[in-house]
């Protein structure tokens, strides 16, 4: 490989400026907040102090939260992996009818924010008044609920419903790309299906399963919404919910911030460990799955089970996607929570009120849209520059950048939020606490990883020779970038934009720690309305959020299709 930058260059050329800029962005936005967390956790009055950290960790409350995070995350990982693998196998390796449609449908849970799902399940399965529990209690004359959602099991169930696609995507992809000749040769040599599955299929797919389940674990460890909706009331806290409780209830006192930072440190270390494990698994698995696209893998004939299996899939989707969504919209249309769904109890007033009359919800929608848009645009632009330096440039000091670029991947949302509070609330001269800017800074830090991933992928496909040709023909570095690189990576940039814009629209974990009186986001508004007992308004707003998300998601799909054709 030749380098894009000539060896004899001025000391502060474009390359150095870009490098300095990239490092500066990542340091200020990502590294400083995270370092401040460790600093606050381990330094007390100017001294390194581990005893205090251990003291905080051994308090019943913190210790229990750590344990809960572990219990919930492992539970969700196990169930999510089973569900995801099973459905992935079903849509790729069997003759299930309507496989293509089913595959798309199994990805829908990705669109639904899990805290909205949790809200719906609370309405369906709370022990005494949940619609499903009520139904069974009335029908069968039961005294108690069929299922109590306010339990570990309930939380695991709800998280599984919305997180299993992590495994589903990875495994379905692996099963499709797997070279079928491997299995076939085993069959020709006389192995039975069981042996083939055990000795060939599973070992080949294992890395994908593992990497998917580690993603679930990573996500679940750091997940705020579901536990906040279903756990807090019965005393089940995980790390992010305890951080939230500490920051909100104890008035920003030193002790509570410290507990927060210690918990956050644990979260960072755990997340980093999971990321490391995942990289190891992927590195090992890479050469095993050979992209053999020429053959279709052999399909298992379901025979008599074809229709029952289809019905099962439909029932699963109906139960986990359709039912909660319908519940949200129906409850959002009730005049007040607790009324039966009869015509005279239904109204559109709630939707009208939150869209047009209520400042709080109108602000929330506006805040989320403008924050998402700004964060996506800024992060996309910064991401291009940083990825360019990482992927294409040969400058000294790039190693730091690579490390800094990896950092956002393993930093959970609540940690970023806590970090920006420490960094931007006046201690270092800048005070943007209580404003939208602090949320914007946090979003940029949080979503930088998405942008780097999408942009690096796009940049890797741009061959160096193109830039070299431009440079050889006399273009400056800047011209080469502008006229050659940027047009070529535009699809990657666009992808980065939407990869950030949509999640930011429904974001809760970060903004719930940072919102001020006028800076609620959609997620925060839904969550606080639910907490305040405005159940119908919270459901109506959730319904509107779902419409915005689904609308946004389909616009992108169309956009990309058109883009690809053109």
């Amino acid at each position, binding site marked *: 490989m030749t380098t894009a930058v000539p060896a004899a260059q001025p000391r502060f050329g474009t390359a150095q400026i870009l490098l300095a800029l990239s490092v500066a962005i990542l340091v200020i936005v990502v590294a400083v907040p995270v370092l401040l967390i460790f600093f606050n956790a381990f330094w007390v009055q100017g001294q390194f102090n581990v005893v205090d950290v251990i003291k905080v960790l051994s308090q019943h409350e913190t210790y229990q939260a750590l344990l809960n995070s572990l219990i919930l995350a492992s539970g969700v990982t196990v169930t999510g992996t089973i569900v995801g693998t099973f459905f992935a196998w079903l849509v790729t390796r069997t003759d299930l009818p309507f496989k293509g449609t089913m595959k798309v449908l199994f990805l829908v849970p990705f669109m639904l924010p899990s805290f909205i799902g949790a809200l719906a399940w609370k309405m369906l399965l*709370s*022990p*005494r*008044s949940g619609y499903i529990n*009520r139904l069974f209690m009335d029908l069968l004359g039961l005294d108690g609920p069929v299922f109590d959602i306010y339990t570990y099991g309930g939380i695991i169930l709800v998280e599984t419903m919305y997180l299993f696609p992590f495994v589903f995507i990875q495994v379905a992809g692996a099963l499709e790309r797997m070279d079928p000749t491997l299995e076939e040769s085993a069959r020709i040599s006389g192995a039975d299906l069981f042996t083939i599955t055990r000795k060939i299929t599973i070992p080949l797919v294992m890395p994908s399963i593992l990497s998917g389940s580690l993603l679930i674990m990573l996500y679940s460890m750091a997940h705020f919404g579901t536990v906040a909706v279903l756990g*807090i*009331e019965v*005393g089940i806290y995980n790390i992010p919910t305890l951080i939230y409780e500490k920051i*909100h*209830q*104890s*008035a*920003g*006192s030193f002790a509570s911030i410290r507990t927060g930072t210690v918990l956050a440190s644990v979260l960072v270390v755990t997340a980093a460990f999971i990321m490391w494990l995942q990289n190891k698994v992927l590195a090992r698995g890479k050469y095993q799955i050979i992209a053999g696209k020429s053959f279709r893998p052999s399909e298992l004939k379901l025979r008599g089970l074809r229709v029952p299996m289809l019905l099962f899939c439909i029932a699963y989707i109906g139960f986990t996607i359709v039912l909660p969504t319908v519940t949200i919209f129906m409850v959002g249309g009730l*005049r*007040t*929570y*607790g*009324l039966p769904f009869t015509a005279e*109890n239904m109204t559109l007033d709630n939707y009208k009120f939150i869209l047009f009359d*209520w*400042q*709080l919800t109108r602000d929330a929608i*506006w*805040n989320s849209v*403008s*924050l998402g*848009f*700004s964060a996506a*645009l*800024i992060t996309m*632009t910064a991401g291009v520059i940083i990825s360019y330096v990482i992927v294409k440039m040969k400058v000294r000091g790039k190693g730091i950048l690579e490390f800094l670029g990896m950092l956002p991947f393993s930093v959970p949302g609540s940690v970023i939020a806590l970090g920006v509070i420490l960094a931007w*609330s*006046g201690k270092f001269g800048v*005070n943007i*606490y*209580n*404003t*939208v800017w602090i949320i*914007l800074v946090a979003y940029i830090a949080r979503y930088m990883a998405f942008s780097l991933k999408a942009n690096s992928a796009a940049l890797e496909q741009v061959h160096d020779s193109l830039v070299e040709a431009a440079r050889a023909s006399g273009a400056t570095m800047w011209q080469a970038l*502008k006229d050659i690189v*940027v047009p070529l990576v535009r699809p990657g940039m666009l992808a980065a934009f939407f990869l950030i814009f949509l999640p930011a629209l429904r974001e809760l974990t970060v903004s719930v720690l940072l919102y*001020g*009186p*006028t800076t609620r986001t959609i997620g925060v508004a839904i969550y*606080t309305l*639910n*907490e*305040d*007992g*405005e*159940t119908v308004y919270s459901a109506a707003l959730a319904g509107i959020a779902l419409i915005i998300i689904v609308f946004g998601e389909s616009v992108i799909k169309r956009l990309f299709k058109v883009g690809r054709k053109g």
Partner: protein
Amino acid sequence: MRLAKLASVCTGLLVAGAMSTAAFAEQQLFVYTSMKESLIGSLKAAFVAKYPDIKMDHQSAGAGKLMAKIAAERESGKILADVLWTSEVPDFYQLKKDGLLLPYISPETKGAINPLPDYDGSFTAARLGTLGIAYNTRFVKTPPKAWADLKKPAFKNAFGVANPALSGTAYMSVALLSKTFGWEYFEALRKNGAKMGKGSGQVVDDTASGELLASLGVDYITLDKVKKGATLGLAYPQEMLVIPSPVAIFKNTPNLDAAKKFVDFLLSKEGQEIVAKNGTLPVRTDVKVPPEYGLPPVADAVKRSIKVDYPALIAEKEATVKKFTEIMQKK
């Protein structure tokens, strides 16, 4: 590139727009209150209609959360709120002691009852909140009459109190009931499966849905849901919980004129009529609560109310919350 430039200009405008919607009105006012949207919303509408040049904003959240917010803001050097209006009376004595409140005796106080000792205008009661037993009429056929009724098997595992760390009215109620009946009362409730919920609105909503059969309900929150068709009843035992909700102006407010106007308006006949219309007791004797709510008249309620020992209340605040939480978290 031109597209990118255009887009970034747009972003700038968008963000700037989000922040500066308030910048053009002549006067601004920010109210932190624990009153729910139904009450503060209608007050705000009337206030803004009367003073169109004042741009009023408000943050509505539980008293505990608001105090946490204020403490964090003090730490960072600037309190965003101009006016505070909650039901957690001890907070106001504390803020006054810390020298954060501006004494202001509104001309409207002449027509108002003052239940607060050591009155110097630092904070003025703007509403007499009452709490009763909110119960779901679909499931509870004999309305509870006394506080002791909640210990009965009819309310097994089905009575809720909001978290006093979050809600000012819940905190005051817990303090008053524990003073009157002793902590044994709450211990007995817990034995009967009573629960601690989240905010004061949430326990009422849970009662409306049937998740709880009864809860400690704030008057206007319960009655607002009744108005919308919820199957709720509100019963007042003989020993009534009557809790003043003080309003105060922060000393360093840059919007003093608007803040004073708001306090005046709140205490005026017009403002108190809105308070009463929403189903909570006004502080003015010349304002009547609509009879369909079934609220006792102000004089009667004050006579029946559990007397508040303010100094003791302030001294024991944290201990009260802790003790209650401990009892309610017992297995």
